């Protein structure tokens, strides 16, 4: 699997400054959106916050340019990006499929997918049999608790309607 390669901390917190620019853009879009609001009660607060966010972001950028400081992020050495992307993609795809295939099937699918991404030990015969069985028990068990006991209307899916 592909791994992250991080250079040693730079003299400037470039990542922090890039994110500050992103925040300025977010605040600018928010400010633009407030122009569509008719009532002052609706726009006074978000407008004040967006302006403050722009001011703090500019201050961060200027501060970093004047007094360089190292990146204070939290990179993890030797971490697998494909597994990370796989986890998020599996969760999003399962959520998108939920109305169509129902909660149980999408739950089983996402459980199996994440199990695959999180598995670093060899798949022995025991693990191949026991892990999926326990996983299915967890999914069905939680479904039963939420749907039957707590009466949460979990999606049953178009297939089962």
């Amino acid at each position, binding site marked *: 699997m592909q791994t992250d390669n991080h250079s040693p901390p730079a003299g400037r917190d470039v990542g922090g400054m890039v994110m500050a620019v992103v925040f300025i853009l977010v605040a600018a879009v928010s400010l633009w959106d407030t122009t569509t*609001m008719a009532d002052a009660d*609706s726009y006074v607060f*978000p407008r004040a916050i967006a302006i403050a966010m722009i001011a*703090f972001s500019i201050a961060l950028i200027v501060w970093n340019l004047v007094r360089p400081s190292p990146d204070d992020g939290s*990179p*993890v050495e030797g971490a*697998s990006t494909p597994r990370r992307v796989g*986890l998020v993609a599996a969760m999003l795809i399962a959520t998108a499929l939920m109305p169509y295939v129902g909660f149980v099937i999408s*739950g089983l699918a996402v459980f199996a997918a994440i199990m695959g991404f999180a598995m670093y030990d060899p798949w022995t015969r025991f693990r191949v049999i026991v*892990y999926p069985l326990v996983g299915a028990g967890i999914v069905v068990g939680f479904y039963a608790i939420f749907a039957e006991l707590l009466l949460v209307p979990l999606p049953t899916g178009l297939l089962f309607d």
Partner: protein
Amino acid sequence: MPGIEYLLDALTPINVLLALGGVIAGTIIGSLPGLTATMAVAVLVPITFTMPPASALILMGAIYTGAIYGGAYAAILLNTPGTPSAIATTFDGFPMAKRGDGDLAVTLACLASVIGGLVGAAFLLMLAPPLADVALAFGPVEYFWLAVFGLTLISALSEGNLLKGLIGACFGLLLACVGVAEISADIRFTFGSQTLLGGIETVSALIGLYCIPVLIDLVATPDKHLKVTHQPRGFRFLESVAISWKHKLNLLRSSVVGTLVGILPGAGGSIAGLVAYSEARRSSKRSEHFGKGEPEGIQATESANNATVGGGFIPTLVLGIPGTPPDAVILGALLIQGVRTGPNLFTSEGSIVFTFIYGLFLATILMLPVGLIIGRYAYKTIITVPKAMLVPTVGFMTMIGTYAIRNSISDVVIMITLGVVGWVLNRFGYSPSPIVLGLILGSIAEQGFVQAWTIGAATEDLVGMFFGRPISLAIIALILLSLFYPLIRSRWLGGTRRKVRAD
């Protein structure tokens, strides 16, 4: 103090069983991310309809107090607050668990919760009617300043970079504005998306911002989730008692803060925990260790959030105004039972109210053995379950828990998206805690600000509205103290050291 006959009524076998069952059910439900104390009480309310009112109240109070404590497990072991009240528990609980002290953190949380619960119940028993007046003294502007006071915690959560903390808080405050505005009903920041129309639900945002980044990092490396020491260390109860005794003032102060915040309608356990954490950090000799696994941080949050249970019942029973969201559900159940809350309740229905209060004491005391045993089991489970089972189980629980809050798939999508955003921001040094703080306090701050502004403008006294009321001034003083205390203290300590060296 009310008579012993009510205590004996509370100690009937059926009431003891209800208190025990309620605490167990509440603790388990509260420990699951997405299932809040409100939901725990709401789901189990129908089974109380056929009970006598005092027994029904004891069961609901036990569920409530158990659920508030149960939120600490996921906060400590998974960095995900099981209930919003446990947000600040993650700040020091997870770092403690990471370094191999998860068992100690769980026991400390249990002890603090019991002490906080007892203090809250004691206030309810002895000072309910006069304290209920405090709730009436709080107007919109006081709520606004209270929210600002909560925001001053950003300086504690920014891990060395205040500007990034402030930007994160602004981002959280903007996120809180998404959806339909509470006061004017304008649609804000949805950009035509149906998904965003319902706004960003706080609990799903919490799960996303705290839990998804942990899962993303867990799946990326073969390292163990928590550091494990292989010697059996039991509950570490005596060690926890010693730490709690050492920081008894912190526990007491946080419990009183929790009770007082609980009295304020709508404030709730999350704000109580944050305010108590902020005060504990400000007054601690080890303030620089907060956020890195400091037991005092866990004690402050957990004692405060459990104290809100007793505190919240004060306006609920005396004024008929629910102090916290679960109190609103309990109030509804009481009305169905035919119990009319109000200033005369303590005299007209004394047998119900005082039996319930003693029952709350009983449930809180029962929480000690129940909490320790369930906590021990939760800790052992988390450290022994293989990663290939832990990550999908937690991932699946985040999805079903988030969905269950509002029966909304949009909330699940928002939760995952915010999780990715939180992970990316964390990589660049933007901690998720200020964002969460902004998100939680945003609606309270905005509502208080806009209402106070409208009243001030109508009475042509804006300055007096914001800066002329005694409670507001007291909170403003606390805000200033909270912001500048580290500076004053370092100056003072620096001056003392220079003096010592000169001597």
